[in-house]
């Protein structure tokens, strides 16, 4: 089969790779994330604007919920805006947080996508300010708890969320005086 001759380096598009992390109350698939980024960029910049971005989702690790997109080197800001404008996927609130920009995939992996991101699932019953919650998961000291209280569940439903964000210190009843004092 006849294959297209590769363009000489001087004629190739200059690219930038943008690493990002998907944050949501459930695990997102690569297909959902790719569609959300494309739709957002199309909605924000229109078809002609989207064509200038040369935007494509190259990789998305569903376990770690991290991945990267490739785009034209002049359009990084607009791609970040498009990713930032993704507010929900399948009726649930999400945030595609840009981690960093690089000119090569190798540097991007080394700088922004190395290291594991652990998420510990749980079913523990906890109390916070006298209200009952079921702890669903913990990552880096940040806990996600499902409220039992119906009024709070209704508030979360309006905000398109499942869980309340709580610090593990709060659940253990520890008061970090230094943090409070210095506003950390």
């Amino acid at each position, binding site marked *: 089969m006849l294959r297209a001759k590769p363009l000489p380096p001087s004629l190739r598009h200059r690219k930038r790779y943008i690493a990002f992390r998907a*944050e*949501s109350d459930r695990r997102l698939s690569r297909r959902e994330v790719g569609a959300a980024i494309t739709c957002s960029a199309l*909605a*924000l910049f229109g078809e002609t604007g989207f064509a200038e971005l040369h935007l494509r989702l190259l990789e998305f690790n569903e376990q770690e919920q991290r991945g990267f997109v490739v785009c034209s080197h002049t359009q990084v*800001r*607009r791609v*970040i*805006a498009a990713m*930032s*404008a993704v*507010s929900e996927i399948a009726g649930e*609130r*999400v*945030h595609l*947080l*840009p981690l960093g920009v690089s000119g090569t995939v190798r540097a991007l992996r080394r700088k922004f996508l190395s290291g594991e991101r652990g998420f510990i699932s749980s079913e523990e019953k906890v109390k*916070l300010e006298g209200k009952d919650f079921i702890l669903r998961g913990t990552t880096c*000291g*940040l*806990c996600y708890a499902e409220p039992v209280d119906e009024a709070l569940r209704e*508030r*979360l439903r309006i*905000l398109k*969320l499942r869980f*309340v*964000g*709580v*610090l593990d*210190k*709060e659940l253990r009843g520890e008061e970090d005086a230094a*943090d*409070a*004092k*210095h*506003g*950390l």
Partner: protein
Amino acid sequence: MFTDLHVHSLHSSGADTPAFLRKLAKSLGVELCLCDGVVHEGIASGMEVHADTRRELLSEVRKSWKRFDFLLVHGGSMEINRSAVRDSRVDALLHPYAGRKDCGVDTVVARYAAEQGVAIAVELEDIVTARGIERAKVLSHFREILRLSRKYGFSVLATSGARCRYALRSLREGVALLECCGFSEDEALRALQQVPEGILEKKRRARREVSRGVRFA
């Protein structure tokens, strides 16, 4: 660092505890200020005033302005928009375009805002959550506010308007979103960093005053 003056926690209409938001904001490089109408230890705390009439607004402002680090007014009706910017105790007017066809800032509001040092706020959450024609309207309102600010010289404040952890935005995202509304990089950085820092500094200075214009060195 992006100083975000309009974030709600579990204490008002938000979904996360203040400590959780503080840790998350730190990881995003954001200085968090909560707008719950509650004074939080170690976090700059403010209040968002909702009022239907001028009298109600003035009464709320009188009650709250000394208690909190900053005072924001939820705009919308022209009566509230004008009353808010005429009062120098108010720090910023939030979404003056709410429920309106225009951006809610006319030449009168713009002049008063510039004279009294009241900032007009644009919320990133409004761009992020709106879809289709609604988003186009929001972007158009932001452009109009920016155009009037260039003409009359009032400050434009950018806030996330976050009610949950996924609505917090980093400085980089804030600049990128504001550039979609016609802000230059300098204008975006000013709206995200210098204007909110100025608001907090103004209150700190006012608290050091023994009486109007007299303060300890």
